[in-house]
Structures are given as C-alpha cells and as structure tokens.
C-alpha cells in the first residue's frame, strides 16, 4: 500500500505534514531536518527539490531554494542524502519538485531513484492532468509511484472526481488561489470551499496546504480535511531559529 495512504488508515485526523527544502539552511541539513521532524512526531514529510524557477512557490520557498542551490545541492546529492536515512527513517517522505527537473534527469532514472530511496509519492505542481493521462500515469504506475494532484477553489466538480479516481495517496487541497507563503486567517469563503469539498465525500484523503502557518490555522483546516501541510512558516522558522529547535515549532502547531 502507498506509504501516505497507510498513514491515513492508522490516523484519520489531524495528520501533520511539513514541507522543507532539501539542502537548506545548509547543504548537509537534509538528513538532520528529516530526523528532527520524525522525532517531533510529524506524520509525513515533503522534501522540496530546489529549483531555479519555482513558479508555484512564494518568496520564502523561492529564497530557500536559491540558498540551497547556492549551497551546491542537486538531485544526485538529494538522492544520496535520502539513501543514507532510508533504513533509519520511518516517516514517509514525499518529493516535491518541478517537472523539468525530472525531464532533464531522465524520467526513468528519476523514478528509479525515487523508488530506491523508499519513496512512493511525488508532487509536481506543474504536471497538468492531460500530460499525466497521456504519458506520466503509465510511467509512474510502472514504478509504483503515486502522483499527488492539487485542487483549488476553481477546480470543477467533474475534475475533482477525476482527480479523486487517480489519487492513491492524498489530494492536495490548495487553501486559496494563491502561491505558497500567503499568511493569515482562514476566511469564511475558504471555509465554504472546504465544506463544499468535504461534502463531496471523496474516497481520497484531503490534505489542506497553502497559508497554514500555526496551531489555529492547522486546527481549523483539520476540521474539514484529514490533515494539513505547513511549508513557508516552517522555512521561516528554520531561518530564524535554526534546525535545533524544530521540536518547538512542531509542538506549537500540535498544541496551543
């Protein structure tokens, strides 16, 4: 079974996922950040593959990606780093990157490395559904990899149903029509949207991301979904407090 789906089977509610950028703040921090997140009890971890032109990311993740690239990170190093913790780490990992990274690396080579690292789920925000259907679905199935689709307030019901049928791990529910890093409260409009999706009774697990930054927004999101993802707020925390205080950040999200 898909490693992420498994999480939802054992823990249906308040699933917490953290996004971080590989090779940030320092090149060698990838492994430590994952270990600290695991110790702090995060349910699954999204490993961001730093990209020069991350179109779907806001300034915080852009900056962390730029820094990681300056640190000398590349796909080969990320895969090496992930291989070293393959046996010790028990928290499922999801890789998040851009399609061009996979394309240039070699699609089969990329998928093989993902599998070798014990990962079975990827998020490629610029992989559109039509390309998935025409080509990538087959490729990923060959390697047992599941692709996570995003849905937004503008995604039509038909399309959501289709995405639901393709989703073996979870559906990434974009909290608002915004790129990552937008902060603030959850509005009534967003709640209406969450409720609308919730009432569709999808078979897939819903995880809310974008704009989730603290205990309050996390709990609110979890009222309407199986879990939520925090990215930019965690990157900001890493920047300010460093990797030694990760536990503090996670407890502040879990508890008030």
């Amino acid at each position, binding site marked *: 079974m898909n490693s992420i789906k498994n999480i939802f089977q054992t823990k249906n509610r308040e699933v917490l996922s953290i996004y971080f950028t590989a090779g940030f703040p320092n090149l060698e921090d990838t492994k430590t950040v994952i270990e600290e997140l695991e110790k702090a009890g995060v349910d699954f971890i999204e490993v961001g593959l730093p990209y020069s032109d991350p179109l779907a990311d806001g300034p915080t993740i852009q900056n962390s990606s730029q820094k990681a690239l300056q640190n000398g990170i590349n796909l080969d190093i990320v895969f090496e780093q992930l291989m070293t913790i393959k046996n010790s780490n028990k928290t499922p990992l999801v890789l998040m990157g851009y399609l061009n990274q996979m394309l240039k690396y070699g699609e089969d080579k990329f998928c093989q490395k993902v599998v070798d690292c014990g990962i079975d789920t990827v998020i490629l925000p610029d992989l559109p559904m039509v390309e998935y259907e025409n080509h990538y679905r087959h490729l990923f199935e060959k390697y047992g990899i599941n692709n996570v689709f995003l849905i937004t307030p*503008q995604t039509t019901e038909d399309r959501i149903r289709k995405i639901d049928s393709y989703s073996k791990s979870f559906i990434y529910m974009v909290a608002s029509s915004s790129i990552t890093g937008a902060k603030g409260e959850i509005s009534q409009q967003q709640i209406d949207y969450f409720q609308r999706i919730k009432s569709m009774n999808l078979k897939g697990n819903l995880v809310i991301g974008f704009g989730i930054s603290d205990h309050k927004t996390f709990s609110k999101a979890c009222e309407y979904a199986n879990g939520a993802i925090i990215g930019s707020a965690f990157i900001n925390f890493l920047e300010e407090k460093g990797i030694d205080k990760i536990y503090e950040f996670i407890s502040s999200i879990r508890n008030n």
Partner: protein
Amino acid sequence: MLLAMTAKNKKMKGKFQPDKNGYFGQFGGAFIPELLYPNVKELEDNYIQIIESEEFQKEYKSLLKDFVGRPSPLYFAKRLSEKYGAQIYLKREDLNHTGAHKINNTIGQILIAQKLGKTKIIAETGAGQHGVATATVCALMGLECTVFMGEKDIVRQAPNVARMKMLGAKVVPATSGSKTLKDATNEAIRYWIQHPETFYLIGSVVGPHPHPDMVARLQAVISEEMKWQLKEKTGNENPDTIIACVGGGSNAAGAFYHYMDDEEVELIAVEAAGLGVNSGESAATSQLGQVGIIHGSKTILMQDEYGQIVEPYSISAGLDYPGVGPLHAFLFESGRAKFMNATDKEALDAAFELTKIEGIIPALETAHALAVLPKMTLRKDQVIVINLSGRGDKDLETFIKHLEE
C-alpha cells in the same frame, strides 16, 4: 484588402499549426499548476472563436489602421542593398505607434480580454516595448495595468519605464534570479496565480498553450501585409529570404507566419549570442539549450544537467531570454528555419551602419537581425525581407556609450 486577406488566411491549416493540446511537434503544451487551469482553459475555449469573429476582426483591423498606423511600410533599402549585393526590404514595424511590433499583439489581446469580461491586465516586459504597448492599450480602453519588469531591465530601458508610468501603468520590479525577462515572466505568472481574475497579456509566443498560438495569430498581420506589399513591389508575394530576431520570438513568428508552409521561402531566425555563443554569456538558446519546460511550455531551454535554468545574457533586454517559443523550437528542430546568431558587438555595428546609410535607428533587438547580413552569401537578385521589429529610441543611452568608446 486587409480584411479580405484575413478571411483567406485564417482557415490555414498546416504543419506548423499546433495540435489540439497545443503541440508543435514535440514542443508546446500547457505545463501549468492546477491553480491556473481555469484561466488557461477559458482562453483556450474562446480565443479562436473570438479572433475569427467578424466583430473582433473589424475592431482589430480598425485599431491597427487608425491607432497603430498600419499597414507598416515595406521599404526598399537601396543603399543597404547596394552594400550587401541583394534586394533588401525592411518591414517597418518600427514605425508602429509605440515603436515596435509589440502593439499588434496587445491590441488583439486587449480586445480578447474585453470579450472575456476582464478588467485587470498584467504583463511582463524585457526591453519595455511590450510593457509600453500594454500600458498603451490599457490607457486606450481604461483598464488597470500592472507590468512586471526585471530590476536590471528597469535600469537599462529607463525611457520605457517612464513611458509606462506616464501611461498609468504600475511597474513592479522583478528582483529574483537574473532580474531580467525570465524573472519578470515568473513574477507575472505568480501574480496571475494569486489573482486569477486578471488577464495575463503575454508579450511573446511563449507560455502555456494557447498563448503561443494566440500571439502568433495576432502578429501574423506582419507577413499578411508583406505578401501583398511584395506582390506590388516585386510582382511576387514570396521573397527568397526573411530574417527576424528571436528572443521569445513574436516578431519572427509574425514575419514567418504566412510563409511557413512555403518551403521555397528561406526563414532565418537570429538569436543573441551576447559575448559569443560559447562565452558563457549568451542567449543563443537553439545553440545552447536542450528540451525542457519553461513558463508552462515545453521547448528548447538553456539549462544545466539538473534542469536548473541557466541565466542568459545579451546586451539587448528583449532577447535576453533562456528559452524560445515552442513554434520556433519546432522550426529549428525540423530545419524549416535556419538559426543564426549575432554578438553584442555585431549588433551594435549593424545598428550604427543602418543609422548611417539608411537614416533609421533600429532597436538593439532588431539590430541582431541586420547583423547577419555580412555573414551570408547573397545573390544580387535575392529578395530579402528583414523584419525591422522596433526603433532604437529606447537604446540611445547604450548607443551613445558605445559611440564614445
């Protein structure tokens, strides 16, 4: 005449038209985050129908005639022809209102935006010509306009920044990456994701389908006019050769459009070599790039072994782009167009030469197209059209600096 030609040409189906998913051969498509899907889909479902409607054609042609000043002249450059031993014609897009071919596209897209009920317009710009052309049509229609421009380009194209501001546009500096056209486009797309109610008035034949095809169709007026103008002047609507500069590729797409299926017409696309193709400071995408995805389109792209986009360089802000439109990638790969390039120095020399012998100061971008003439083996009776895509007023500071050197 213009309307009749349009009616004849709009139905054209050829090898160089995109398929239903927006592919030209292996290039194109729409690699966009789900957040942009509704916007792109709305445009895709409507753009052809709008462009082909009688109402649109009437408004578009009328504005091109009375506001832009079309048809742009096809000028026989006598002294340039004598110098290079060929029959050289210049398609004078530099004489358009706002000083470049860019306005053909912005007039068309602003009408499309209006038909789709959009009131807020965003755009990216490199040299500032597209930014000015967008700000101009927004002023014309009374629509809100925000233009993203690389911080580096804001400095090197200051007159255009001033013009945009005077026209009422908000100019937002792009401070990421190389702070040039690529980054301005990233910022425009990010803003679009956050504000899906806006209309992204893209400036070149780049971006997700249907943008490359839409912009090519709107720039196609250039080659549409060339056909009857050449017929009048030479008795033959086909030239032997068409030369145009390519950054993203909109002026070249317009100049090539109605000739792409006529294999007897040689098409030459000129890229910016910067300090030299292999100097590490270049924007000659076809020579340095490989297949990749940029700004929602699969094309040829300057990138490293891990797919990280390489920052390009050219003295010309409009050609300083690490990709090329998917149509051009296909023209390159299929061998239909010949890709040449010119360095900063060659472009500057060509700009000074045209100024001195023809009395026309071309834009730095355009100067790259002129700069390949000395590298070609020409025949005395060879009819060449060079798309003179823009005027050089915006580049005076650069020109003066080099004049003094």
